[in-house]
């Protein structure tokens, strides 16, 4: 297949061949990361701008590393230092940056659809690094890649995702990447945070973490945000942790070779017990490594080829 996308806005319309293509490219990128000189000149002279309207050191650093490993010039704009706080519209901010001719804009924004909106008005390539509660495509891909490396396949695996499903863009991207590749997905959390309509995606919904974890091959724990408790999605963090936190006894309900994942950052003791976060079945650090490789693949595919059609 040939890669024809100018943007990576979400995985919702990615065909399985496209997902496989990115994963395959990520494998080659991961090899670069094992070398002594972890750099290739593929994006030399290209500019990647990280336009982050939401605090996120982890994802931003990952994209920054990915760009630099490909020899691109990487520039960071984050909302606390930019003009957003001065009341400039999103479009004006983006256009100002576009005037400096970046090749790729990596954008994270609290409004769903912000990258889609910008893609209609800008001419550079756009990568969605997380938009509101909509998607986080590179996370969906790196989760898939991590599982493929650990388990060899995704089809037929029982994958449980536990936490604030309602507000999670990671879940939506994972539904596309993992669900489309044949995994059996279970979504678990307090009923206030698991919209019933999610069942239309084909996933199984439950408010009982034991049901979700039982015989699971992969358990993805999501970070719970403290603000959610303040608007009464659940009574207290203590209650949440009791009912939806993963600890060793619960984990023993899963398959013997089950693995634990988390998009980070982890609230130790809340959604994941201290011990489980560091145990050898935790793939959290693998996810980080996979993340750089996947992001290298995305940047390479967007900037490294011909775009004569545009």
């Amino acid at each position: 297949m040939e890669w024809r996308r100018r943007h990576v806005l979400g995985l919702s319309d990615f065909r399985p061949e496209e997902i496989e293509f990115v994963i395959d490219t990520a494998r080659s990128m991961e090899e670069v990361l094992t070398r002594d000189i972890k750099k290739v000149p593929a994006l030399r002279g290209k500019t990647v701008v990280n336009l982050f309207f939401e605090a996120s050191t982890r994802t931003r650093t990952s994209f920054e590393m990915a760009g630099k490993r490909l020899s691109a010039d990487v520039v960071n704009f984050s909302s606390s230092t930019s003009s957003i706080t001065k009341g400039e519209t999103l479009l004006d901010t983006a256009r100002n940056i576009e005037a400096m001719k970046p090749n790729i804009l990596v954008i994270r924004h609290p409004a769903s659809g912000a990258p889609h909106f910008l893609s209609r008005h800008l001419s550079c390539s756009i990568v969605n690094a997380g938009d509101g509660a909509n998607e986080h495509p590179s996370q969906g891909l790196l989760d898939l890649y991590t599982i493929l490396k650990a388990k060899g396949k995704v089809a037929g695996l029982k994958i449980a995702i536990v936490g604030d499903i309602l507000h999670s863009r990671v879940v939506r991207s994972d539904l596309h990447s993992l669900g489309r590749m044949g995994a059996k997905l279970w979504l678990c959390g307090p009923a206030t945070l698991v919209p019933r309509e999610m069942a239309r995606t084909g996933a199984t919904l439950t408010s009982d973490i034991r049901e979700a974890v039982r015989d699971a091959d992969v358990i993805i724990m999501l970070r719970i945000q403290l603000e959610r408790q303040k608007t009464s999605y659940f009574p207290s963090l203590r209650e949440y942790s009791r009912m939806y936190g993963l600890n060793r006894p619960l984990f023993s309900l899963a398959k013997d070779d089950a693995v634990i994942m988390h998009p980070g950052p982890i609230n130790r003791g809340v959604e994941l017990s201290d011990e489980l976060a560091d145990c050898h079945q935790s793939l959290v650090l693998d996810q980080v490594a996979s993340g750089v490789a996947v992001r290298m693949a995305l940047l390479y595919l967007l900037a490294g080829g011909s775009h004569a059609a545009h």
Partner: protein
Amino acid sequence: MLLIKGGRVIDPASRRDEVGHLVLVDGKVKEFLAGEAPGDFQGRVIPAEGMWVTPGLIDMHVHLREPGYEWKEDIRSGTLAAAAGGITSLACMANTRPVNDHPEVTRYIIDRARREGTVNVFPVAAVTRGLEGKEMTDFSELAEAGAVAFSDDGKPVASALLMRRALEYARPFGYLIMTHSEDPELAEGGSANEGWTALKLGIPGIPAAAEDVAIAREILLARQTGGRVHIQHVSTKMGVDLLRMAKRAGLAVTGETAPQYFTLTDAALEGYNTNAKMNPPLRGEEDRMAIHEGILDGTIDAVASDHAPHEEYVKRCEFVAAANGIIGLQTALPLTLALVAGGRVSPSRVVDLLSAGPARLLSLKGKGTLAAGADADVTVIDPEREWVFREEDVRSKSRNSPFLGWTLRGRAAATICGGHVRHSDLPGVGVDG
């Protein structure tokens, strides 16, 4: 003197639906003539063969934005758009700046309309000062200054107690309180109908319950107080069901809907289309069908556009940040006429929804009917004419409509206000200066 010749005169208030001729003299309807047209007519003749002749359309839910937001719209441009849409009278909402919560503002609007307006403008005053939901406005002074009804539209009256007081206080005077029904806490943070589409797009949802809870409240308070209440822009199935139940129980509750709610669903949001963003939001197919049923069985009393003009750049942004609302003065008629094409709604019913009903609800004397002595507000409608709604056709200052580019069927061929032609597509019939 005007003779509107040979059209199908549809006047449900007079129980008339027949081909004939209408004579207008000195700003009033003189008479309806059946049979042959008078051969020796001295005044102007407007040929209406093959068309409908109806009492002037009345849009009872319009945001003219003047005073205070004149870059979005003003009385001049808004009434021009209304005339182009066949509308001869409109009721304008109070969420201007300053809010129409003081007789001076009411008088200002009426004065501006007299100087600059193309059609009749009836101001709706606020229920509470500053639309803050805390203190009632001076109903009697506002009514004397010309307010035809009261509404905090744009915002709900959040306090049930205040709504009770307003309904109870207004009752003996017969003032009409209209409500934008919404529970602000349930709706908080949402930008689209809570449902599958919003979930797919990751947009925070406004549950139907936010509207339904408030509609139920209004109805029960009307019951408690014996007062009269009118529910604006009904968008949900349960809303229609509640309205139906209230009417069956004999309560003085009426309701209106807007064309977007029986034409579109939240599927129109695909691609984060900000021209489909409004409040109440576009709902699901089940709700849309329920609105149809409500129109058919008389539960819904009127169709009003909720014309809400916005400048381009507050719509040219990420979805959750976009302003709510769409323009609607020029599309209300064709979209409502589309109900007739479905075969279940009669032309009379359409005229009732767009003219007679609003006149009744707002107690506009001499309007909404073509009986002898009524005001000479007449709309000549070409029900078959197909046309494309293009940007060049828009008379409003704002272009925020999801219907741009649509091929519509039915259009106002001429709009006559007080005997003066305010809009005309008819060859040989010019607009009066």
